[in-house]
């Protein structure tokens, strides 16, 4: 008999990071949505990974599928999040070839099903299922404590959303003790405004039972929101909603990606990345030199990070590490991603400029006076020639 070492953990997290984010267009052309840059120095997955370690979860399986190169490289051995461990730590879990054949992850539930062996290695009492697509800071440990106190089969984190947006989410109805009474995935006529955040705590035994039976159901689309949660609910499992108050964002489109970045600006920003009262968001970053600010530069209401060179004007913008804004250039209401170069005299307004892109001298990107207020997206590694004008590409970008 082969001896397989197991390390008992009371809880582990399974982080779903295979999302394509197809509505993000050019921004996720070559990378999975969790690897999308956010907030001057982060990737979206940093928030979920940091939440895990800041909540005391030290074993995380990251399930990847779509364009995983950048994500795999980024997560590496998990060292930036202190997840390089002998016992636990981070493990990348891609789809694999098995005796039963070769198959991709066909749904979120199927992805977990295919990694039951990983879960069993740690024989956890509870398993967190998380999504790597969301931007938020949350202490999961409170939710886990609630889940244990209530002796629930499943606890789902929910957030109050505006009624007008409720039909984009999985919507929950709860009774006075926060037990979930009804669940509807993307309902046309929502009965409540409590939306699932895609953050679940399952009792391991219940999770495995439902995952296995769902896998054997040919009618199922193998999805947590569409299949597992409704099935558990109809079987009378004890399911609790955990209300989260705070910033939580699912950036699905270039416009929402842009506005989420803009929500970092201002005296009292909607998403307070900067609060010293909460644990830091960890990310893989080389120690780049401080920001170099030139003699004639002007910076107002912006978020800028290390490795940037600012010689021109920056206003209401988020500038990612390694980016350069040259002399006489002007960047307004824009998001400039990693290592992008804005040439001498170029004007960038209401735009997203992709990583490693070069905007030529005196080029004009984005909104001009008198033209409609549409977002302009320049993809990664694009070169815009000197004196060129690019405007209103919408989400498809160039």
């Amino acid at each position, binding site marked *: 008999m082969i001896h397989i070492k197991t390390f008992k953990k009371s809880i582990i997290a399974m982080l779903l990071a295979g999302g394509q984010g197809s509505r993000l267009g050019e921004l996720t052309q070559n990378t999975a949505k969790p690897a999308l840059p956010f907030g001057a*120095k982060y990737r979206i997955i940093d928030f979920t990974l940091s939440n895990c370690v800041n909540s005391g979860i030290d074993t995380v399986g990251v399930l990847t599928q779509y364009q995983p190169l950048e994500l795999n490289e980024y997560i590496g051995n998990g060292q930036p999040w202190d997840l390089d461990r002998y016992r636990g730590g981070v493990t990348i879990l891609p789809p694999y070839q098995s005796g039963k054949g070769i198959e991709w992850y066909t749904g979120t539930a199927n992805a977990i099903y295919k990694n039951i062996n990983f879960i069993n290695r740690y024989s956890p009492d509870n398993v967190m299922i998380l999504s790597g697509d969301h931007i938020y800071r949350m202490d999961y440990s409170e939710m886990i404590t609630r889940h244990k106190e209530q002796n629930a089969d499943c606890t789902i984190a929910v957030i109050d959303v505006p009624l007008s947006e409720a039909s984009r989410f999985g919507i929950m109805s709860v009774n006075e003790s926060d037990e979930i009474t009804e669940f509807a995935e993307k309902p046309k006529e929502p009965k409540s405004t409590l939306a699932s955040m895609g953050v679940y705590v399952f009792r391991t035994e219940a999770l495995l039972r439902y995952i296995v039976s769902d896998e054997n159901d040919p009618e199922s689309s193998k999805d947590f929101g569409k299949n597992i949660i409704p099935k558990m609910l109809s079987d009378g499992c004890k399911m609790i909603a955990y209300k989260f108050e705070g910033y939580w964002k699912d950036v699905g489109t270039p416009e929402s990606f842009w506005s989420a970045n803009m929500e970092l600006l201002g*005296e009292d920003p909607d998403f307070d990345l900067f609060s010293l009262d909460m644990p830091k968001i960890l990310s893989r970053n080389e120690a780049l*030199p*401080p920001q*170099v*600010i*030139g*003699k004639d530069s002007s*910076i107002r209401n912006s978020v*800028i990070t290390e490795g940037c060179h600012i010689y021109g004007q920056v206003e209401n913008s988020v500038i990612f590490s390694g980016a350069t804004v040259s002399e006489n250039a002007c960047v307004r209401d824009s998001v400039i991603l990693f290592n992008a170069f804005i040439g001498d005299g170029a004007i960038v307004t209401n735009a997203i400029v992709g990583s490693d892109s070069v905007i030529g001298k005196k080029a004009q990107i984005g909104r001009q006076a008198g033209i409609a207020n549409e977002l302009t997206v320049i993809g990664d590694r694009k070169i815009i020639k000197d004196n060129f004008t690019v405007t209103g590409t919408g989400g498809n970008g160039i």
Partner: protein
Amino acid sequence: MTGVSGIIFSNLHDRNIHELTKKRTTGAIPFGGRYRLIDFPLSSMVNSGIDDIYVISHHNYNSLVEHIGSGKDWDLARHNGGIKMLSPYITAYATSDSEQYVSRLESLKSISYSISKIKNEYIVLCDCNRIFSTDLTDIVRSHIKSGADITLGIGRATDSADNSIVETDEFGFITGIAKNVGKTDSDSVNLNIYVATREHLISMINDAMMRGYSSFSHEMLLRGRTEHKDKIGTYRFAETFIGVSSLIDYYNAGMAIVEDKDLYFSLFERSNFSVMTKVTNSAPTRYTKTASVHNSLIADGCYIAGNVENSIIFPGVHIASGSSVKNSIIFSDTYIGCNTCLSSVITDKNVMIGENVSLLGIPTLPIMVEEGRKL
């Protein structure tokens, strides 16, 4: 370059900048917005392929140990090689209070056992009192080629007035080392970078112990030269080393990297030759509507609502609106209140300066505010 180990002396020069070394070693002095002085020799070693490095400290090493951690930010958390902090050598050879600050030679004596355990053939020795980003493989090659017993790095340093000048013969072998008296601009300053084989270094140290020497250069090197016919080679570095031999030197060095962009680029933006330091995971810096920033180096984690000009701002600094910071070096987590005016000031960490305060130094006499002070 393989087969080379490094030894870094972290606090041989603490007395020179006593204002900044009350609670830290020279190696742990903050510089350039996010670095510590040890990052420069350490990164140069790592960038030159030296990945077996020993750091010697004497006292006050808390912040240094915290900075280095496991060494992972320099890729030096290794099973084979990596970085090792050698335990302090405080009392072994100190016979009275005045001798407590032991010399380079005495510190080497105290770690001779560790040196004997080094597996690599060559050893590079470096100090922490100069700022540079340079390839150290050439001095090792030069050492091997010249057949010298020990090779000494020489070159230009901005603090040459306070240092020793190396005299050489036509083949570059040392004939003497003299204190620089008045010759302010020498291109043969002793940079205190040495290369020797492990074996030769150990035999030199043992011999020096036997004879009761206490000075590395004046006794061990120069007497070794006359008594054992040791060949002491030199290697001339092309770049200028920025010396910090006093608080004013330190201030000038900071102002120099702010003003001289070529110097800045040659230190911090050489391709494949970056200066590595501890990763702090600070949030990005935010500038408010009232901010105005010119010609400065700004680290992450700051909040800037006031005016900043010709200054270096370390992580976590808060500069409230209406305030003005000029020609200053502001260490981590300093708070500067509304309508406060600082000019030619160095604030150490965690300084709190309230509203409507004026601190006006002059570039030749900057004001130093000690760690944790509240004004």
